[in-house]
């Protein structure tokens, strides 16, 4: 997946300004940056939820707008922050929606097996018949991820998956992200606010500032005192824990 010269304006204000980068396959890529830097908008554009003003999003040799939505949904899964589901829906029924691109409303025996796997993988077996609106935030997030797993796509896009979760659930979420990549071989792209989660669990980081890419590279390349201070305009210290750079800001 390759992004070229992406531009987006809202009411004459440029929020994404000719952004170009290539997404490395089979890795975890985090998009970070201060509020309003354009990272969520870029995410929205590459997941076809937001229309762009200019630029190309090349996915497997074809621009994303030329893909049939149905075909794309077998290759690329999206999870956004707003998941207010008003319906009476059980965990299992939600996960079963992940099979919609393949079999429409009719679930086959093969789909059932995949749904079972996804539920077991996310350790949701005991609560698979509970209603979504009766779950805690962390459990609901896990159910959503199980749906994404059932969707069985090569690419997974997560928009601030740790938002509204406490430290325990947020850390678990990041471990799941790592497993999606390492065990299931998926390419994961996520928008994150917590720099240290990005540093500890990603392979690559793309840092945004003022609608432009401030720095794109491996975690070690981006997590430097100078780069982070420039992007966030506060003082940073970089420490190393388990061979990974972590930042302290104050």
């Amino acid at each position, binding site marked *: 997946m390759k992004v070229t010269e992406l531009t987006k304006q809202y009411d004459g204000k440029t929020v994404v300004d000719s952004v170009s980068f290539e997404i490395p396959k089979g890795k975890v890529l985090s998009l970070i940056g201060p509020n309003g830097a354009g990272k969520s908008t870029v995410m929205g554009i590459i*997941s076809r939820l937001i229309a762009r003003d200019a630029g190309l999003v090349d996915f497997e040799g074809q621009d994303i707008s030329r893909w049939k939505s149905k075909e794309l949904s077998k290759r690329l*899964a999206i999870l956004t922050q707003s998941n207010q589901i008003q*319906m009476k829906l059980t965990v*299992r029924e939600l996960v079963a929606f992940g099979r*919609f691109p393949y079999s429409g409303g009719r679930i086959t025996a093969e789909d059932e097996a995949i749904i079972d796997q996804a539920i077991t993988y996310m350790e949701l077996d005991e609560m698979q018949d509970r209603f979504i609106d009766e779950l805690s935030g962390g459990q609901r997030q896990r159910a959503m991820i199980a749906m994404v797993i059932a*969707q069985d796509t090569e690419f997974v896009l997560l928009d601030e998956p740790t938002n509204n979760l406490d430290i325990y659930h947020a850390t678990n979420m990041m471990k799941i992200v790592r497993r999606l990549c390492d065990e299931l071989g998926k390419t994961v792209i996520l928008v994150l606010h917590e720099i240290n989660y990005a540093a500890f669990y990603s392979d690559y980081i793309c840092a945004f500032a003022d609608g432009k890419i401030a720095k794109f590279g491996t975690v070690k390349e981006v997590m430097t005192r100078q780069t982070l201070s420039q992007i966030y305009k506060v003082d940073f210290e970089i420490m190393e824990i388990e061979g990974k750079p972590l930042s302290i800001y104050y």
Partner: protein
Amino acid sequence: MRTAAHRANARKLILMAALVLLAAAAYLLVEVNPKYFSYAMSLRIPKLIVMLIAAFSIGGASIVFQSIINNTIVTPCLLGMNSLYTLIHTAVVFVAGSGSILAANANVSFAVDLVIMGVAATLIYGYLFQKTNHNVLYVLLIGTVLTSFFGSIQSTLTRVMDPNEYDTLLTTLVASFSNVNSEIILFSLAVLAVLIFALRRDLALLDVLTLGKAQATNLGVDYDRSIRRLLLGVTLAIAVATAMVGPISFMGLIIANLSRQLLKTYRHSQLILGSVFFGMIILVAGQLIVEHVYSYAIPISVFITVGGGIYFLYLLLTKRRV
């Protein structure tokens, strides 16, 4: 997936279908004088069919509408079709007089209603959808504004109207099942059949659409297109029901929520059936009571409005998250 809950709901729906049949049979047969059996049937059967069609379009449209808006305490009344209907009728009587063919002939009056409401709905809502970038909430807001707009014009007209004319007008402004004939029934059935056929793909997507725009898009569904088509379908279905029996779509709130409460599912195939059956039971049993207990003294819409109002309050007070 055929889960236990799914089967339990299927049983509930079969039970409701049986109740509908029971109510229909009671409506046809209660206090029939065997001597005039065929005459009684020629009066009662068309009325029964009209009630069933009205319940079908209102029940279906209400569930679809709530799912599109993602809110279970809205009714398609908000789209302004009811007040457009009252405005059309008032304007016709005001301009042409209650004796004119436009007002007196049921067929012509039905055709006028349907054409005006259909064209207005298609133009207004089709245009608004593009103008507001497919924002359903704006469309809803404008629908509410239009409701009071139509209502104001209507009340202005009635103020300057001949009181005798107003008296005749008033009877057409409350929902009623009298004065129907078979041409209207056939025509409504045809409109509804075309509507369902045209929207069959979008209706099948309803379960996915309720997950919200992001998730529906993720699953490969063209959300905006389906929502626009379904909203238009809802408006037309309500227009058919209103043109046939008068302003009654408030009932949609009751039956849609009863169906959601009873079935506790997300499957729209079941929710819509449940809502339609509830509508049929309420209308047919209600009309039975109106005719035989109150001897037509109170129109059925009074029961529906009073009952619906109380149920609406109950919904507001018991729902924590709206």
